[in-house]
């Protein structure tokens, strides 16, 4: 199955790719669930979704998936520099998404640090990381949908290997 322009994923890579997509979707859902909107807008009334109105549950899931995301990103980055870059190029859309992901991860790390018992940030910085984390995720969602519709992929095959 062709997942990118000219590059064919192995079975393991397909699993990782879908693992990443699923992680991002559930992270997004539980992240938005940190705002008190799921009960208000009946999401938690859907059978089997009552947990989505429990802020401690969504928060724990968000943290667990953030761990998985950090692991996946570390794997993808290391793999790219160790072998991937010889086989394929990153597209412009990939650079945009990587920039957004970098911002999301950094602000997320600060958000996690802020929640530790012995750490306190200034009010302005607290507000900044809260809103920028949300804002960057929203931009990422719009970008991901746009690239999905336009069919622009993360990677394209390295011409020197395209034989």
């Amino acid at each position, binding site marked *: 199955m062709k997942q990118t322009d000219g590059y064919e994923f192995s079975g393991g890579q397909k699993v990782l790719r879908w693992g990443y997509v699923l992680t991002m979707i559930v992270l997004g859902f539980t992240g938005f669930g940190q705002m008190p909107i799921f009960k*208000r807008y009946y999401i938690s009334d859907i059978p089997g979704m009552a947990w989505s109105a429990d802020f*401690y549950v969504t928060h724990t899931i968000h*943290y667990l998936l953030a761990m998985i995301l950090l*692991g996946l990103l*570390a794997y*993808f980055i290391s*793999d790219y520099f160790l072998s991937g870059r010889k086989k394929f190029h990153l597209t412009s859309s990939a650079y945009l998404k990587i920039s957004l992901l970098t911002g999301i991860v950094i602000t997320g790390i600060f958000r996690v640090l802020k929640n*530790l*018992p012995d750490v306190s940030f200034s*009010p302005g910085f607290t507000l900044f990381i809260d809103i920028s984390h949300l804002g960057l995720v929203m931009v990422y969602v719009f970008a991901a949908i746009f690239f999905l519709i336009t069919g622009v992929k993360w990677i394209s095959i390295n011409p020197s290997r395209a034989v």
Partner: protein
Amino acid sequence: MPNKISRRSFIKGGLAAVGALGVSSLPLPSTAKGADQKELATLIDIRKCIGCEACVEACGEVNESKFPKPQKPFPKMYPKRVKVSDWSDKRYVTDRLTPYNWVFIQEATVTLDGKEETFSFPRRCMHCQNPPCADLCPWGAARKLKNGITRIDSDICLGGSKCKKVCPWHIPQRQTGVGLYRDILPSFAGNGVMFKCDRCYDKIDQGELPACIEICPEKVQKIGPRDAIVKEAHAIAKKINGYIYGEKENGGTNTIYVSPVPFEKLNTAMEKGRGRPHLRPVQDSMAHADNLAKAMVIAPLAGIAAAVGKAYKFTKNDKNSEEERE
């Protein structure tokens, strides 16, 4: 007013964040540091309280300028299940917590040494050491200050009431028709502002005592460095063969009660419910999150190790294939 964020600065911060611009103009986390050393706690010796409500009255007078001034009519709320919380016509209610009453006197009649005795004690925000209301506020409106105070910034709060839901004592109280939500999507997001005791942070900044402590004729409350307050609480408890509440609850709070009666007994005897917090034992609400946060350090290392392992395996396989070809 220190640490106050105006709507103007909020909008400035929001635009900077969403646009990822102007980062350099925002305050950097230079204030990020261990808060333990500077935390102030209060000691409440419930034997001394006579239930005169002088603290309740003083709190109302000193904090009147912070109380909500809602604009009516309230924006129409969607969906219809969203309820209006309006205390503006009941602002003189003092037998529970409301947006206009940040401390109230709770009473419990119990049997002590064979005699029936009524204890009264002030109840308000516990000012947790790791407050879930501040940790889980999605908007940065609730936050913990370095001196151990947890306060909600009424200029930023949207009144979603999440802080109340995650608070083990359900302390914050909502007033509809006031605050930032009116300027964003008043009918569809937010529902006012959450209010609770801010332990007179502005008076403390001026080197003064919180109003409830300053006014108390019986010196029921005392404020000081947490270590010293905890030490004193233990000394009193030892002397009277008494009990402590707040030292370990929710992972530790900055409000320490001392009582000659077990708190379970007081909790059973007193009126509880909306705006009237319990005195049950409370597990650390943020313990799981704290443990997961520490475990997060391992995740990237595991990812790097997996990639290195994969690269090593491929290099080895390539080498073997080449040797076989030779």
